[in-house]
């Protein structure tokens, strides 16, 4: 009784109202509307069963391609960000003794820039004719590698993945660096005395001890990758053709075209995937042993 008086329920009400109004009620009612023909052309909303979902899953439409692109983007950004983020974290943790904070501040810088701005700058850098990247490749004699990065449908997705990874590496590095710093130094010393070489120390001490941080990094990247919008919208807007179209950019297009029922069906699919992912994230975050 007493603690209810000191920590009253009304402390929680403001955030609950905001959260329910802008997140939960729209998402749950969206599941209902995904079974309707809701559109901007008609005031009438009719129940149409699974028609929207049949359309999305039909091989005659492009939606399966957008789902595939979303997974492709998520998969490759996870790999690139984790590999480079880990390499840089190791570099700053073990290789460099001085200016660690200076390097960390600079490498993290792209993370705080708006996606929109990053996309606009890279539209210039990746320009096929006079962009900085191709000019540089020509100057060092690698002109053959100077590709039409955002224009060729076969490589546009990978260019987008590259830009996004460039922006996100610093974030992953900082989390992994913090994880590395929690590994006691004597583990390495003991292993060294027992004759373990650098690879063995990395494989049998660093990786297992870093597992919790690597898991966190992976789920954060999954959540980000499945919802990605800004960087693709501003870099290619899903083009050329549909080469870089993902679920969120398609949702925006359905929104602009007034296809609300169909769009909300796509959004509901994303919602269900992310609820499942979110459940695992929460379980994972709660299991952190050294939670304060």
């Amino acid at each position, binding site marked *: 009784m007493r*603690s209810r*008086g*000191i*920590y009253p*329920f009304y*402390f*929680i009400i*403001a*955030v609950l109202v*905001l*959260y329910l109004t*802008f*997140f939960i009620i*729209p*998402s749950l*009612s*969206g599941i209902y*509307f995904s079974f309707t023909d*809701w559109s901007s052309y008609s005031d009438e909303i009719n129940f149409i069963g699974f028609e929207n979902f049949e359309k999305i899953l039909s091989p005659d439409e492009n939606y399966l391609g957008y789902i595939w692109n979303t997974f492709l983007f998520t998969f490759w950004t996870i790999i690139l960000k984790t590999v480079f983020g880990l390499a840089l974290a190791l*570099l*700053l943790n073990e290789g*460099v*003794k001085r*200016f660690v904070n200076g*390097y*960390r501040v600079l*490498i*993290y*810088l*792209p993370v705080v*820039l*708006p996606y929109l*701005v990053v996309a606009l*700058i890279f539209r*210039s*850098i990746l320009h096929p004719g006079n962009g*900085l990247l191709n000019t540089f490749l020509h100057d060092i004699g690698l002109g053959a590698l100077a590709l039409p990065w955002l224009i060729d449908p076969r490589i546009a997705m990978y260019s987008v993945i590259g830009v996004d990874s*460039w922006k996100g590496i610093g974030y992953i590095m900082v*989390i992994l660096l*913090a*994880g590395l710093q929690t590994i006691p130094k004597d583990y390495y010393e003991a292993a060294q005395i027992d004759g373990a070489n650098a690879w063995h120390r990395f494989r049998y001490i660093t990786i297992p001890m870093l597992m919790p*941080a690597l898991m966190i990094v992976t789920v*954060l990247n999954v959540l980000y990758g499945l*919802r990605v*919008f*800004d960087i693709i919208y501003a870099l290619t807007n899903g083009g050329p053709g549909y080469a870089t179209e993902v679920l969120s950019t398609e*949702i*925006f297009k359905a929104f602009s075209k007034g296809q609300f029922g169909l769009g*909300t069906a796509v*959004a509901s699919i*994303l*919602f269900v995937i*992310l*609820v499942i992912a*979110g*459940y695992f994230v*929460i379980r994972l*975050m709660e299991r952190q042993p*050294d939670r*304060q």
Partner: protein
Amino acid sequence: MWRYMRAPAAHIAAFLASLIMIIPVYLITVNALKSTPEASSMSIALPSELHFDNFLIVIEKGKLVTSFLNSVLYASTATLIATLFSAMAAFAMSRRRTRLNRFLYFFLIMGIALPINFFTLTTMMQVTHLINTKLGIILLYAALQVPFSIFIMYGFMESIPRELDEAAIIDGCGPLQLFFRVILPLLKPVLVTAGILNFLNIWNDFMMPLYYLNSSSNWPMTLAVYNFFGQYQSSWNLVSADILLTIIPVIAIYLLGQRFILAGLTSGSVKG
């Protein structure tokens, strides 16, 4: 041999990585000061003469004063609302761990993962008369920042001794007085961290105004830049100047608050 080479080699690698990360900002800075023909190739060369007038042109043509004030208004008020209310909720839920409160905590931080349904959210904004209004976008931004704010504050609460609560209550404080007079000042580190992260997230966002603000007089800087880019694509010096003015506040806050940002990230994700 490797032992002596190791430190310099590591510095070279770290230096190159840092260079790759800051080149785009450098590129924007030098090109913002060039003439239009000189900036057309967006090269890394320094400007042959400094065109500070680019900034004046951009501020006038890009309506940057209005959009700057909008961004400041949205980011600061939404940050304040989200940070304060999240702190209150995290305090109550962390101190009084009933079944309901445990459930509400998980329910709220689930929002870290959830996508927004823009279609039904539009209806919600229409029903509440918040669509295309400044108040609407502020409340929406505040709501979006709640889950992560609660997540990083909840863990921090345990570092504040419960004895303080009891002492304050014995001294005659009510719950509100206890929170605002005793607890809030002790939350300063985590409030600053959450505040900075929320502010930057909102400042950098451009999806919400894209969906929910149709009048250009309400646009924040990101959307104004995007629109400016559409009109002046061939004048990279002006686009660069516009971009630079948009990211200067972000970089300034980052450099001043980097200690808090990095602390927040690691406490939120590694240590919990």
